[in-house]
């Protein structure tokens, strides 16, 4: 409990990448096998995907995971 690590904040470029592809949230959801609400939650940063889902997004957009998701350290506790 005493050794508090800074919280990792994960942001993503899904909104931008989806706009570049000119597809709707529903179309992306169908492609990666989730619901539209989950795509919306991912884009808003309300939900961090599993590694499997991150790979599915990476394969779909043909980009590395690091190009889609960015990690920042939040030192505020």
């Amino acid at each position, binding site marked *: 409990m005493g050794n508090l690590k800074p919280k990792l904040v994960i942001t993503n470029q899904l909104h931008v990448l989806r706009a570049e592809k000119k597809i709707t949230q529903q179309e992306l959801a169908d492609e990666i*096998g*989730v*619901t539209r*609400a*989950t795509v919306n*939650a991912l884009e808003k940063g309300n*939900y961090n*995907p*599993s590694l*499997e*889902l991150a790979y599915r997004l990476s394969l779909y957009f043909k980009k590395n995971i690091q190009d889609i998701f960015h990690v920042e350290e939040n030192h505020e506790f």
Partner: protein
Amino acid sequence: MSSSLNRFDRYSFYYLVGLAPVIIGFMIWAVIKDFANMNAAGLGWDIFGWVFIAWVLIMLYLVTKMVFSKTIRDVVMTKLAGMKERDERESVVAGNAAKFSFLSTLALLLFLFIFSVTTFTVNKHPKDLDNKKGTAVIGFALNGIDETALVHEVKGEIETFTYKSLPLTKPVIILLLIFWQIGSYHLVARRELRE
């Protein structure tokens, strides 16, 4: 629902759910029209009686099977609770909701158990007794068997056995639920952690 249940269970469910509006409608009508004091005789009533008996027996069969069969429980209870797990995010949401529900139900059961075994008595004495005008007694009482649940009566030549409810008292049922909740949680959690 249909694919994961065997044929008998599937048709049992169709029978139970399909006839539910008729049975519920009849129950409401029976209360309004004071059915207990009506002379309901004839072939129609006999047929309805058998249909009703079958409905109740099927309901008892399904609720009993639901306790022991994970398949049937998953199919029915997820529908009844409106649980959705269409993707990983919904599974996480369902898990969080289930945790909240589990802990709050456990707290509620504990509350109900403590209040159902606590006894409180106040006595007022007309005259001073050991310099006291009254006494208060607080304690716990736990009786296991509800003797009014199973009744055997003999009136003349008529012998009647009546089942009214589970022959266990409320506190014991609540205690069993508490043990079941904690026990089943540990059973599944330990199994999953070992894998």
